[in-house]
Every structure is written in C-alpha cells, then in structure tokens.
C-alpha cells in the first residue's frame, strides 16, 4: 500500500465536497426533529431533489435554477408527508418509509429522459489570489458556492435555535406539544413549516450529488446518503455544529475509502461503508446508557402525533 499517493490537502478539500449532501439533508432533518417530527423519508426527498435539480438545470441551462427547483421538489414531496402525518395523523415512521420508496420510484420515472446527459457545470467561486495560498488555498478557497452555503446554513440554524424566539418556539413544540398548544402556539403550522424546510434542504443535498458530485443521472443516485443523514442527526445529538462534524467525518470516510482503494489497501470497502451506521449505533448505545444531558437533548415529543382534543 502506498499512502504517499494521498495528498492530505486534496483529501480535506474533497471530503468537504463529499460532506455537502449529507450535511444539508441532516441540517434539514435536525430542524424537523427539533419540532418533534420524525421524517424517515430523507432519502426519497433527496433523490427527488437530485432528479428535479438535474432536469431543470439541463432544460434551463442554469445550475442555480436547478438548485432552486431541487429545493422545491424536495419540499413538494415533504408536503405529502406533512399532509399525511399532521392532518390525517398517520404514523410517522410508516409514512416516512413510504415516502422514500415513492421518491425512489418517481425520480426514476422522471429521470428516464435524462440518463447520460451532463448538466451545465456549477462554477467555483473565484477568490483570486487567495486560492493560490499553498495548502490553505486548496482546502478553503477552491470550492463552488454550495459548499460555503451549506456551512452558512448550519450556522444559521444554530443561531436560530439558540438565540431567536422562533427557534425557542420550535424547540418548545418538539419538547411538549400539549404545553405549546395550551400556551397558544399553532403546533401543526409550526411543524408543517419545519417539514417543508427539511424537504427543501434534502432536495438541495440531492441536487448537489446530481449536479456537482457525480454530475449525471442514474437510478438510485443518492445511494443511501439520506439514511446517513438521518444517522448523523442522532450522532450529533440534535446539535447543529456536531452535524457539521459528523458530516465531515462521514464524508471523510467516503473519500478515504476511495483513496485507500486507489492506494491498494486491503480493507474491504464494505467495512468502511458500514462504519457510519456502526458509529451511529454506538452513539445510540452510549446515549441511552448515560441517560444524562445527551438523552435529554433528544426532543421529547419526537415521532408523536399531536391532536388538539381538549
């Protein structure tokens, strides 16, 4: 095995890119779960975003319109989830799983006409001389705008949850919907907004795969990224900055696995692909064993439907 073939600066730069889809989707899901809703349809919303983004980017020859359409596509799919769980009070786990299956099927149908077509390239942001700084330039200043946007969104969500009244109300709804209702907050409406945001973020993440990472359309292009995003939310203990950490960690594993393969490592790829889930299970075990602050951070009303019966 020849590890010298791996350039650390390039490795870090590429893990930042690899982490974008799961980071976006996980940040969206974090907001959804903080509002007390468990949407397991992230994979389906991501792939809907991927196909909508690619189709519109190709038709309009604009990657920006592509990303906008991806967010709209993901949000549209999440609207089905919102209607079923918030209005009809369907079981959230079952609805989320159905949403994933539906998204995979529908995206495959829409994507039929786009197999093999390359989308217009997404340009990198031009930082001028900054990009030429050795190492740092490679790591920080040679990315497309979405990489920076994803970090900004994590920061914005953190600030929203931590410092604003809207964030406080969101957390309150996820903590105890009966109390929030008694105080006069519109539980269903707040949850609907959170679900739509989660859908839009998952859609953006999916489009990043089909427009930048891969760039083309194949069936099942997201390849489980949605599930990793769900795992990261738990791994992060419902804290935005840890989502960034988790996404970089798991993005790093993905990139490392490719590099190690190229360097001729003998670890089977499957072990590395399994690792995000194994780590998540480990985190869950540690959390439930400790039952301290970590467990406390999980929204208490997560996955429970609300009905104003009184």
């Amino acid at each position: 095995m020849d590890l010298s073939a791996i350039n650390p600066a390039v490795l870090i730069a590429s893990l930042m890119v690899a982490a974008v889809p799961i980071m976006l989707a996980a940040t969206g899901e974090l907001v959804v779960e903080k509002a007390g809703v468990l949407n397991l349809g992230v994979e389906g919303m991501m792939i809907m975003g991927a196909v909508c983004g690619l189709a519109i980017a190709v038709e309009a020859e604009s990657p920006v319109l592509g990303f906008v359409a991806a967010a709209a596509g993901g949000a549209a799919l999440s609207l089905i989830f919102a209607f079923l769980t918030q209005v009809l009070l369907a079981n959230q786990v079952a609805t989320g799983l159905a949403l994933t299956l539906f998204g995979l099927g529908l995206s495959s149908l829409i994507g039929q006409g786009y197999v093999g077509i390359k989308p217009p390239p997404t340009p990198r942001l031009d930082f001028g001389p900054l990009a030429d700084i050795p190492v740092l330039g490679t790591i920080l200043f040679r990315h497309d705008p979405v990489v920076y946007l994803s970090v900004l969104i994590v920061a914005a969500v953190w600030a929203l949850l931590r410092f604003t009244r809207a964030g406080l109300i969101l957390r309150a709804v996820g903590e105890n919907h009966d109390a929030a209702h008694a105080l006069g907050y519109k539980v269903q409406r707040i949850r609907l907004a959170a679900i739509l945001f989660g859908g839009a973020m998952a859609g953006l993440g999916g489009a990043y795969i089909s427009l930048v990472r891969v760039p083309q359309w194949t069936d099942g292009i997201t390849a489980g990224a949605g599930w990793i995003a769900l795992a990261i939310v738990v791994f992060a203990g419902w804290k935005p900055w840890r989502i960034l950490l988790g996404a970089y960690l798991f993005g790093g594993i993905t990139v490392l696995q490719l590099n190690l393969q190229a360097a001729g490592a003998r670890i089977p790829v499957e072990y590395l692909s399994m690792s995000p889930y194994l780590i998540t299970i480990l985190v869950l075990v540690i959390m439930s064993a400790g039952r301290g602050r970590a467990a406390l951070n999980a929204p208490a009303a997560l996955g429970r439907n609300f009905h104003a019966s009184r």
Partner: protein
Amino acid sequence: MTGTGEVLLRIEGLTKAYPGVVANSDVSFAVAPGEVHALLGENGAGKSTLVKMIYGLVKPDSGTMTLRGAAYAPSKPGVARQQGVAMVFQHFSLFEALNVAENVALGMQNPPGMRALASRIRQVSQDYGLPLDPGRLVGDLSAGERQRVEIIRCLLQDPKLLIMDEPTSVLTPQEVDILFQTLRQLSAEGTAILYISHKLEEIRALCDAATILRRGKVVATCTPRGKTARDLAEMMVGGTLTPPSRSAKAKGAVALEVSGLSVPSPNLFGTALKNIGFSVQKGEILGIAGVAGNGQDELFLALSGEVRTARDRIRINGAGCGDTGPNERRRAGLVAAPEERLGHAAAPDMSLTENALLSGAVRKGLVSRGFIDWAATRAFAGQIVDSFDVRTPGIRVAARALSGGNLQKFVVGRELSQAPAIVVVNQPTWGVDAAAAAAIRQALIDRAAAGAAVVVISQDLDELLEITDRFAALNGGRLTEPRPTQGLTVDEIGLMMGGAHGMEVAHHVHP
C-alpha cells in the same frame, strides 16, 4: 364584594357543548378587581372548560363575556394575555428540557432579551417571595418550584385577572401557605384571582366569593367564609355524603416487609429510592404521602414487581420476593393497582373482560395449559362490575369508553376481588368524582377488615387521614418512619413531606 361598584370580568349565559355532553350551560357570574373568586365543583363539573373559554383556548357556543366594560371574546390565548388575563395550568404547560427563563419567555407576548428577562425573573421572584433560578432546567425542579415558574410567567405580564387551575394539588401544606400569601399580596394590589379547586378548606381560607358548578350549571353563589366545608361539599355534590365507616380491629402478623430498598429510577427526571424500609401487618392500612415526583412511582413499581431488586429487600409473609416479577408476586398474594388508569392499569382498547383477564389470570385460574377460560373470565369481569357498581353498558366495552371514576372502580375492584393478602394502590381516587372516591375508599377499608395488608400511596392528604392506620411520607426518594395516623397534625405531616422545600434557594438531592 360582588354586586357593588366596578366589575372586572362579567360572564353571561356562557354555553359550550361537546358531542354527547354539555360542558357548560348558561353560566353567569362576575369578578370584581382584587377579588379572589372560587370556582368550585367536582371533576367533570365544567370548571376547566369554563376557564379555557376565558383564556381563549376554547370558543363558547353562545353567551358573552365583558372585561372592564368592553366586549371580550379572545380568539386565542395570546389575545387574552394582551388584555391582562393570565393562567396557571394544572398540567401540561412547562417544557422540562428548557430552562426557567425560556419557559417564562414562551408564555409571554413580547418577552425582553434573555439576559434582561433573567434579571426580571430574579426581581419578581424576590418581590413575591418565590425564589427561582432562571438558568435551571425545569426538569430538575420540584413540583412546587415548577408552579412558581408558571406563576412568575403570569406575574411578569402584570395581569388584571389571574386564573389558577387546582394550584395546590401538587404542594405541601407549607408551600400552600406561601402560595396563599402571594395570592393575598396580589389581590391587595388589585389583581383579581379566579381560583379553581375542590378543596373546601382552602377556599374557605382564601376566597371572597364562590361560584359552585354542578354538571355544567351554576347551582349556587355564596361567600365561602360564611359556610361550613360540609355545606359547600353538599352544594357541590348535590346530596349528602357518607364518610367511610370503619371499625377497630385487631392487627395480625406482618404480611409485607420492606427493608433497605434502594432502586434507581427507570424514568428520566425520576427519583431514585433510597434505603426504604417499612412493614405492614394483616388488617392494617399504611398511607404513603408525598408531593408528586418524590419516588411514589418508583416505590409502586418496586412493590408491584415491575422493577426488580435483591430478593430479601421485599418479603411477602416472610418469604423474599424482591427478584420476582408481577405474576409471581400475585401468586404470593400481592396485587397492585397503578395510578395511570389508561395504559398502565388497563389496556385502553381492550374490553373489560380482557382487562379482567390480564391481571386476574394468575389468582383466579383463568388460564389452563395455555388456553383461556373465557366463561370464567366473563363471570369474573361481571362480578367486578356488579360488586363495585361500575356503570358500564356491558363487559364487552373497551376500557377507554368508561369514565375515569368508573374505570378506577373497575381497576381497584379487579385487584380487590382476587382475595389478595396484600394490596398496593397508587392514587386510588385521583380524578374520580366524590361518590366513586368514597366507594373506593370504603372497599379498601373493607379489604383490610377482611385481613389484607393495604398500602395506599396518595397525594390526597385528606384521603390518607381518613382511611389509614399509619402514615409515612416520601421525600426525595426517602421514606419517613411510619407513625400512627391518629393524632397527627397537618403541620407535622407537612414537615414529614419536606416542609417548604427550601425557602431561600431550593436545594435538592439529585442522584
């Protein structure tokens, strides 16, 4: 104070019907500024619906409300708060994982920044003698402190009318005194208080006027100080009440013995049990008091066998059984009726017959070689319904369909009908109307008279004083030495329950 001068809130002909039940029918009364006005009635009399209409959570079908002379019809709680109406809820309005300041902010219309809010919370909490640390998580607070959070949330908005829904049900007698001082201070400052309760002595001590509701209608208005508690009770119930009767009896051998019992809580925010020890003789009723959340649930689970411990910690008739589950304990003669009726004591969507089977199978021999003897089970369920006067269309209906009082009679009756040697009940009459409560208490007394050892865990002090032979209190997971109930004063009981829970700054023992 009524009838003269200014009126703060006037309610006329308020009516609200739900499918199948009229919660309020043509309710009218008036509250003057600075008046402490009691709304008195049994569970289900319509008090809660009425105040929810005043607070904007429920819209009345007909009738009008006037606040300070202007028409008042709040469409949501936010509007009510803006007009100076605030409410302290009995349950469901605090967020355990958020801190005190965040909880307060959620109940305000336009809260200031967190830092400014924290200092105002400190200020107001000192002014009214309700010490509170704005940075603490509500999940770590005692019931009394949680109530302070709610009260301060209201006070910060400078309310003209403060609604309090059963505020003392979670407090020790000393904490009740502090609360009353706060309320009198508020009333002297001109804030009207609408005080909901079914505790008559409190209402006589605190309130200037009372409106009594029965089945959704106003049945009387009076000055509570001029009436005896018995008068008020009879107005509330609409008949005469017979207190449970009991006869002196000889006690037998020790049936249940607990020693050195320490168990961690299975619940988040639960209280661990610390070195609990007591014994109960045959024919004796031991009462265990305590403010909610001091280990009652954990003690119940440890006694029923849902939480297991070392074998010798719990002995039934001298035989260690701490490591056995509920069914083995039933076999040994111990039956248990938990507090939560739906979901713990009974499976909500299963019929009364099936529910009778679930706990009665062992002692009544309803299952043989894995097959259920349905005929015997139906006979058992029918027998419970008949002998405990459970009002139900039949034994086929789902447990969920019964009213709280009837289901409680069924659940307690199911356990008592198994000829148990030891009975453990948690909150046997919580949320049950007075008639059903009296029947349940009488049944417990009768069971003890028939030779069973009975442990009653309850937060209702009057109940414990009425039926128990000995009395102990849980406080922070520790049990006080049981003392004979006769001759105990309310002050002594309050001290056993932990007094005022730290008047300066609350200190807690946390595991």
